[in-house]
Structures are given as structure tokens and as C-alpha cells.
């Protein structure tokens, strides 16, 4: 069982959250020419590496806020959590 520290509610169990994937992916800017490759990278292509991974979770059965979580994909250790609007440093 993962224990995720929601920046709004505190430590909660994994059951309350749903996963949203890689948090470092940025949508191509609106109103600009976007190549097929840009879309491909945004929609499909992922690094998905072993080790530290910034990812989105939603506290679905809690405050319903999206949050950013830095987790180790090999050990499941969670290092840091941020609110959705906080930049990854």
C-alpha cells in the first residue's frame, strides 16, 4: 500500500487516489503550428524510467484535487508531493 501525502489533506492511503501519468508532459502551446511529432510526443511517447518519476495523482476520494508526486518507480518510495500549480524544481 502506498501512502501519499496530499498537499491539501495530509497522508492518505493509495485507495483514495487515482493515477494520472507522467507530470512532466506539457501540452503543445495553443495557437502555434504543431508538428505531428509534437503531438506524438505529447499524446503517446513517454520516458517511463526506472527511478525517480514525477507523476500526477488525483485525490479522487478526498479533496478531488490533482497533485504532483515524486515517486521511485522501483522502490515505490515517495520523496515529495506538490500542488498541481506548483512547478517541479
Amino acid at each position: 500500500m502506498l501512502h501519499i501525502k496530499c498537499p491539501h489533506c495530509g497522508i492518505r492511503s493509495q485507495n483514495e487516489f487515482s493515477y494520472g501519468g507522467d507530470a512532466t508532459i506539457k501540452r503543445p502551446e495553443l495557437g502555434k503550428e504543431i508538428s505531428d511529432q509534437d503531438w506524438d510526443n505529447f499524446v503517446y511517447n513517454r520516458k517511463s524510467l526506472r527511478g525517480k518519476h514525477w507523476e500526477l495523482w488525483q485525490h479522487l476520494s478526498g479533496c478531488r484535487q490533482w497533485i504532483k508526486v515524486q515517486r521511485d518507480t522501483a522502490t515505490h518510495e515517495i520523496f515529495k508531493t506538490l500542488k498541481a500549480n506548483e512547478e517541479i524544481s
Partner: protein
Amino acid sequence: MQKYSVFSLVKNALSNHQNWDLAWKDPTPKKEYDVVIIGGGGHGLATAYYLAKEHNITNVAIIEKGWIGGGNVGRNTTIIRSNYMHDDNALFSEFGMDLWRRMSQDLNYNVMFSPRGIINLAHSDAQMNTYARRGNSMRLNGIDAVLLNREEVKEIIPMADFSENVRFPIFGGLMQPSAGTARHDAVAWGYARQADDMGVDIIQNCEVIGFDVSAGKINGVRTSRGDIKAKKIGLCVAGSTNILAEKLNMTLPIETHLLQACVSEPVKPVLDKVVTFGAGHFYISQSDKGEMVMGGDLDGYNSYAQRGNLPTLQHVLTEGIAMMPFLSKLKMLRTWGGIMDMSMDGSPIIDKTHIEGLYLNCGWCYGGFKATPASGWTFAHTIAQDRVHELNAGYSLNRFNTGHLLDEKGLGTKTWIS
């Protein structure tokens, strides 16, 4: 190579089984090979076997970080089927079914292929309609499919919950009678033994550290046991695909996720089919030892852990108990996890890459084991001929870019869509 037969068994019994040949050797890597296959799982071993058998390319090495058959080929729930709707998946899988039927003879190794049939349960009228459509598509592609109504399903699996007052009543199901199971370790060992006999070097405990790429061409691979040159290199590393792709500066439409499976304590024969729950993701069969073999959803987040978390297991088994209430009385014997190369449309990739001489085989999601022979056969063809075979033409890498997705179920890594 010593042929396995009842005569060799009797002969070796007389010497207390002390004189059997080694099934495969433990060679030191050579400096150069014609083809290097990275990954000594089912797909890698099958690829090497078919390279030697179908294309007479025997100067081949398989490089494996751990030991052969220690990854997903030894961790799956052994289900073999071709009950797909889309042509690309159906024809590929049915080609594989033919290889499965002949495998024990081809490999001179009993893989215990058991075509016991698979039933996908339907829990609504709408689901019956989609199953009818899928069944028709299967039959058009020459695959056996039988649409069963509630009474027919009840006759085959009376232990399922057919009471009136259930959340997901069984309306019927789609059966593929020729589907089944096989002994997964035997598949790896059988391919390894034959490949080794034809001259393939199976190099275990050998980790890939990097690649030698120059001017868009692959020249070799750097490993923990020295550099190995090769003009052609095939990647067959399932859940580790992204790790190797990083070393090649490639970003792929793949995420690595954790999938769990479990077996109960052994019980007397009760279930002679593979059965899947239609209102969630749960599948079950009974092994020859009597254990109920079960699996279901991904844990749902990127993971390389090869071990699972309990919430997913609990969720999956809740579905199992809803389908077959007697399961709640069984004790769990063992649970485990493997890391899956989840592609974004749920279908695999067997293709060339932008690097000349580098070939990619990945994205097997939940269905890698059943694809072992067909994957090996088509990947061997792709490597040997330097072009894809029509059977794996749909499994291209650039389909995500061009929009030609093969969305059989359309799930991929997004399990919550189901």
C-alpha cells in the same frame, strides 16, 4: 543433442539419470555475431530459434541480464488464445495458435499445451451483441468462436454465480474452444534447448550497458561481459524496453507497469476452462496441480518493482469472488508481479527502427505469453529479411504518429478507462 523420448527416459533411468546432456551450454560471449538478441525471455528465445530454423542464421547470441525464463515468461498466467476482432491481431494470433499446436513436436519438449477453451462472460445484452460481433469477425478469419447463452454457460461452468440477485448477472459468453494454456517454463526451456543445439549462444548474467551506434547504424552492444559486435540487434526486453530505449535516445509509446497474478492452494479439479469476467478485469483457470491461477488489472501506476501492492489484488479478487463465490473459501498460496511493456493502444510493436540494424519487439501488455511463437517467428523474419512480414505489418512503431492505432480494446496504459 539427445532426443527426449520414452526410450531415452528408460535408458537414462538405468543409469539413475546421471548421464543426461545439459539442455543448453553456458558459453563465453564471442567478439562478434551476425545477430544479437537482447532479452532471454520467451520472445527472445523463440526469435533465436526461428532465426536458426527458418533463416539459417545460427551465428546468434541471446544476451540476458538475469537467467532465461526468469522474467515474464515465468510469471504469466499461461493463457493462449486468438479471440481478437481486428484482422491484424486475429491473423497474427491464429498463426501463433498453429505454432502452439505443433510446438511440443517441433521442440521435442512437452510444453503441455492444453486447448481447453476460453470463455469471456457477458453481463448485459449490449455485451452479448459486441461478443456476437467479435465472434463473427473471428470466424471470418478462420478462428473458432461459439456464442453461448446463459444456460449453455451454466452447463459448462456451474460453479459461477447464476443466482438472480447479483450485481453482474451472467447473460452468456463468447467461447473460443481451441484456446487454452501451456506450461510456461517449458516453452522457454524448449526454445532454449533447440536454439542452443542449432548453434545459438545463450549468454546469461550479461547486462547491456550501452550501444555502439554511428552514422545511424548499429555496430554492436556494450555489456557487462565485454563489447559484442553485431550488424543486427533485436530488442526483446518487455518491461525493460524503456531503460534500453533511453540508452538509444529513443522515446517510445510504452510505459512500464506492474501486473500481478496469484494462485490459490491446490484443490480437486473443478474448472476445465479459462474464464474471464466481463464486467471488470479478472481471469481464472485451474492448473494441472489444482491451483486456481488468477490475474486481472495492472496496479495502475508506472512501476519496475516486480512485486505488487495489496489494494489491486483485493480489487481483482473481489471481481473473482463476484463471478465464482467459492473462491472466497480458498487460501492464497502465492502472489507475484511482473513488469509489462504497456503500449498506448494496447497492441504490440514488432518493427524496424530509425537506426539501421536495430529491431524492436515490445508493447505486449497483458498478452505476451500467448504471442511467444508468433512473435518469435515474425521478429526473426523482420530481422533476417530486414523487412516486416505481412503478419506483423500492423504492429508498426509509427502507427501512433500516423494515427493507424490498433485499438482492440483501446486501453493501453489507461486502465481506468475500463
